[in-house]
């Protein structure tokens, strides 16, 4: 059953003087309910201006040399050409890509795994859900990153634990070979928000499919492969896109962990952190704007690829 969206329920024939039985025309004045709606939206529209104006300003600035203090000067594509040559930019891309492509699949797998465990009718589900969700709320916060720095410090809890087994642990946050790994683990730990979405999705799968499969003798793995995954695929797809986008934009973790430097030795120099350094430490705001637009292009490209690939693996029930 469907109702055409563009036929407002309120659009009844006008009472005063409209030719009865004639062709239905839209009244020139909007119904008062519409006006109220727009009125309520007004704060959002005003708020939008603060987003839209900088949005287009940054597009312009991307093609300029702008040091914040003097008026921007147009330099065409120079900023983008510079990106091809800038070794630190390449380093920041490398860090961001490694971070994204390792942590996103792992955190989605963790989210799905925990969601399936919780979906087996655990008592006190809301409590567990809240407990597992908690890290997502905290994971991006400064306090937690600082706490992790202590846990993973040279004399931290992790190394004390390893010490019991005679292992001399490295400085997990100070050694350039391990700092990014530590951040990836921190990210995987914050699987709460995809988990909640997975949990809701799992609830939608009718139990009868599993019953029927069980009667036919399908193993649990088989049920997972042939029922859970296909029926959950739109949700997986949604979570994948969401996680990719947010992961490409990582900033806080790298900033706090390294005190804003992207160190040790550039190993946590996330793209957005480098963008921030360029804009605010080195006064290269034109270059920083160009970088922001490049990130948009990169994210759009990956999202587009995902949508194209989705045809082959995402299954819609309706």
């Amino acid at each position: 059953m469907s109702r055409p969206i563009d036929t407002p329920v309120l659009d009844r024939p006008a009472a005063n003087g409209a030719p009865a039985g004639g062709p239905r025309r839209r009244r020139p004045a909007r119904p008062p309910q519409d006006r109220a709606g727009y009125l309520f939206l007004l704060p959002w529209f005003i708020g939008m201006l603060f987003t839209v104006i900088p949005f287009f300003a940054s597009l312009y600035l991307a093609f300029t040399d702008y040091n914040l203090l003097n008026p921007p000067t147009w330099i065409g594509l120079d900023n983008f050409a510079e990106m091809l040559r800038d070794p630190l930019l390449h380093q920041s891309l490398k860090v961001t890509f490694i971070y994204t492509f390792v942590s996103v699949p792992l955190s989605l797998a963790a989210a799905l795994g925990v969601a399936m465990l919780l979906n087996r009718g655990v008592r006190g589900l809301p409590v567990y859900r809240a407990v597992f969700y908690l890290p997502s709320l905290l994971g991006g916060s400064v306090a937690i990153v600082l706490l992790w720095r202590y846990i993973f410090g040279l004399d931290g809890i992790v190394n004390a634990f390893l010490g019991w087994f005679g292992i001399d642990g490295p400085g997990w946050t100070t050694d350039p070979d391990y700092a990014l790994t530590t951040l990836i683990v921190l990210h995987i730990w914050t699987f709460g928000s995809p988990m909640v979405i997975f949990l809701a999705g799992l609830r939608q799968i009718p139990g009868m499919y599993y019953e029927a499969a069980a009667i036919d003798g399908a193993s649990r793995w088989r049920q997972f492969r042939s029922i859970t995954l296909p029926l959950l695929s739109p949700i997986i797809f949604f979570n994948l896109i969401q996680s990719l986008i947010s992961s490409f934009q990582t900033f806080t973790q790298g900033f706090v962990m390294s005190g804003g430097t992207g160190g040790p030795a550039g190993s946590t120099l996330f793209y957005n952190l480098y963008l921030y350094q360029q804009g605010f430490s080195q006064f290269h705001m034109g270059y920083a704007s160009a970088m922001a637009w490049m990130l948009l292009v990169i994210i759009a490209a990956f999202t587009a690829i995902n949508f194209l690939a989705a045809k082959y693996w995402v299954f819609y029930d309706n």
Partner: protein
Amino acid sequence: MVLSRRNLVKLAALTGLGAGLTACGRGFGGGGDGSEGGGVQLNMVWWGDASRAQKTQAALDIFQKKNPGVTVKTEYQDSGPYKDKLATRFAAGDPPDLMMMRMDSLREYADRGALLDLNRHTGAVGVSGLSESVKSLAAVGDKNYGIASGLNTIGFVVNRTLTEKYGVKIPDGNTWGWKDLATFAREISEASGKKVYGTGFEPATLANIIVYTRQRGEDFYTSDGRLGISEATIVAWFEMVEAMRKEGGFPPAGFFENIGGGAEQSYLAKGTLASQIIPTNNFLSYNAAAGGNLALLRMPGETTEKRRGQSIDTPALWSIAAQSKHQAEALKLLDFLINDPDASKATGTTRGVPANAEVAAEVKPSLPHDDQVATDYLIALQKEDLPRAYTYPPGSSAIASSLESIATEVEFGRQTPQQAARAFLDAGRKALGG
């Protein structure tokens, strides 16, 4: 929850759009050029903590009493966000009248005409009480874009409690060399069974390597704004630190964490380091945190190398915006902060020893004992003949981060000092544009 294809596309498109639309929305107080009762309101910004705020306000209260009709609205915050905020305010055409300026940001602003040339206003701000090296801190060519808000330098502090405990003699702080430091550090580490490392400092901290560079007869930044440090000096610096690390006098790789924080969180306070380099204006807080038995030494090598390396520095400059609408009043406030003993009595040494030597001498007796030690150290240093240091050229923040990066590469043995030195010079030349 019904996810149709269409809804999903919409959702994803919305979040994708959100990705591009990240706006930086940090709140920011506007400039204060509103007038109250016909008077002038100055806007003054600085970085620091609550205790500095209290002292600063005390000084401003005196200024306002002495100058009826001028009110000062101040804003302060941590140094990190301060930097962003200042840049944003200039970009918005709403700069503060008087501001605290980092040495390494000075020319980013000054070279673009954003700051007032104080040499054209010497009548308004007296500089007769400043020594030549203090006057030259913010000098670019024949112009001057700031005055030191206070003076400091770096010094070596040694924890006497630890040296007595382990029976190690502290070298003579006026004549010791880098070799003496290495010997001292090794002795402490050995005597303590490596529970305490003899010494430790960040080889990537500019102030540290600059002293060493100057001692070798080179300027880190030259008068024409280039990198003057030679490859050989960078190599020697890192080799010296790595040699101490190998002997055990210096902590292992990964030991120093970027935890920030003040004296309380320092390794000196924790008792894991017997000596380290500190800015002298922090002597009081380090001494309090480390048990009150610190000795303040000069940097090693001051008499054993080619020439003197230490210099008179400032934690921050006071600068005035070229666009300030109340320049006369801002200059008056600056003059008060620099030359009026009442101002320095109120602020103490929160920004270092008063830049004006007469004021410093007058204020000294009212300071706590440890601040007097640091003040004496600096007064003595000012009387000596030190080679001139030059302002940090624009691009120096990129140089600082590059130095930090290569220091880590060396620390973990991923690059030899030679490779690191070459990489640093390449990056440095590029950052300075040529």
